[in-house]
């Protein structure tokens, strides 16, 4: 479970105040808002990449606000996946396990299992430059799952994909969250995407979060 209480972030003259959010395991939460409203700032703060002024971030009841990103167990998948350009797909997926100093047999097993489950086994030797948008997202997801996360964070994962892939990756992300029973925070600027994917959705406007009534939005 991810719980954010009274989070306050200051970035120069830009302030986000009283951010409260609770996402239970297996729940798909979408945070939407216009470009530049601070969605990514919130996500980066949750992941530990940005300092917070006050408030608390809890993962499974443990306060992680003062922990470094590596200790938070929060997987972060940015817009284009941010695949490391000097590593092939296999090395990308093995990377978190290598950092955890796991033995090579365990790492090989992990890469095999994840690549099979995300249908990217045939891409293991390929460089990120030779992957399509959908394949990049799959690899980024596999790499994020390889660290055995407790929370999944997706930063506009569908914005760079065409219509066909959009549907495919939507289903993949939703299934991954359900199957792994993890809390998921997904940010997007698309209202349509938020309504179609979310179990719970929020809108960020003028530095404040307000909940969206999905039932009424879907019935429109």
């Amino acid at each position, binding site marked *: 479970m991810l719980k954010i209480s009274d989070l306050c972030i200051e970035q120069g003259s830009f302030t986000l105040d009283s951010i409260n959010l609770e996402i239970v395991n297996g729940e798909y939460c979408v945070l939407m808002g216009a470009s530049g409203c601070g969605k990514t700032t919130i996500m*980066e703060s949750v*992941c*530990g*990449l940005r300092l917070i002024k006050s408030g608390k971030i809890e993962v499974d009841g443990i306060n992680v606000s003062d922990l*470094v*990103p*590596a200790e*938070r167990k*929060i*997987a*972060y998948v*940015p817009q284009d996946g*941010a695949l*490391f*350009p*000097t*590593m*092939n797909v296999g090395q990308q997926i093995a*990377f*978190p396990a290598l*950092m*955890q100093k796991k033995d090579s047999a365990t790492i090989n097993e992990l890469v095999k299992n994840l690549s099979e489950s995300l249908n990217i086994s045939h891409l293991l030797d390929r*460089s990120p430059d030779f992957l399509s948008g959908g394949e990049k997202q799959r690899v980024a997801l596999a*790499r*994020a799952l*390889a*660290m055995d996360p407790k929370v999944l964070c997706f930063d506009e994962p569908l914005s760079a994909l065409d219509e066909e892939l959009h549907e495919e990756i939507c289903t993949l992300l939703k299934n991954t969250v359900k199957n792994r029973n993890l809390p998921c925070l997904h940010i997007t600027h698309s209202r349509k995407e938020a309504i179609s994917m979310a179990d719970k959705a929020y809108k960020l406007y003028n530095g404040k979060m307000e909940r969206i009534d999905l039932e009424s939005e879907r019935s429109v």
Partner: protein
Amino acid sequence: MLVVASVVYLFKAPYGKAGIISKKGGIVSLDWQKGGANTITVTAEDGSKEVFKVQLEDELISKDGKEVLQKKDSIIAEDGEKVRKGGRLTINELSGWDAVYSTMHSPEIQYSALISLISCTVSALLSLWIAIPAGYLLSRFEFKGKRFIDGILDIPIVLPPLVVGICLLALFNLPPFSYFSKWVVFEVPAIILAQFMVACAFAVRTMRVAFDRIPTRFENVALTLGCNRSQAFYNVTLPQARYGIITAFTLAWARSLGEFGPVLVFAGSTSFRTEVLPTSVFLELQAGSLKGTLVISLLMIFIATIVLILARIFGMRSDKGEIC
């Protein structure tokens, strides 16, 4: 165009009678002094002999239907003297190939080429050693005095090179540096230090630009995947900066190779000790051997081009992910 001009001048026919060099080296015998012909005989160690006909007096000769004065050979070799391979027997201007042969077989030039290669490589590596962390620090972090450090790094670039050498000389005359001066000043470390002072500034600038061009999101993702800052730097950022590293190394190396003023002031120009290729050019020019100067200059251009080509090939391979 300048290179072509140098090559054309080098291989242009010498003015007047061409100078003579010994291709094998050995003991010189001035035969006319022993009642023989007007020849110089050089006897090599293996017993083989080179015989050169020389002209002892000016004479009028017929050339293209005109009478022209042919100057005598200005002989500099002495009877019984041992000359090296490529050693000069007369002082007249050499033909192009003879100038190349003579210069390339000169032990002083061979030593200065070797010391240049070694000192350039060491100073370029030292520059990288400073440039990688300094470039990363300046690119990624905001801290007090950053602008000041940024400005200081530009000083060696804008300072006249000779002044850098004089400043180094002054520095090593003051404690605590003066305690080390007997091992540094006018010794090989002085060459490396003089080259490093300027090359390092260029390397830091290059590395900063290289790190600026790598988005921070890769490092951010690596941090969330279980890395600490140094692991993210070594595993994610540094491999992406490899082309910048190669460029910085090449730039520092090439800059070091051409460094003359600070080296001359701080390290001197002692043969077989602190003579580097630019100093050799200067010494050859002082000796009035323009063709010798051109040979060394072309050698420097050749070395620099080879390094540039190797760096490009290596860089392109790295770019394709073959070498990480």
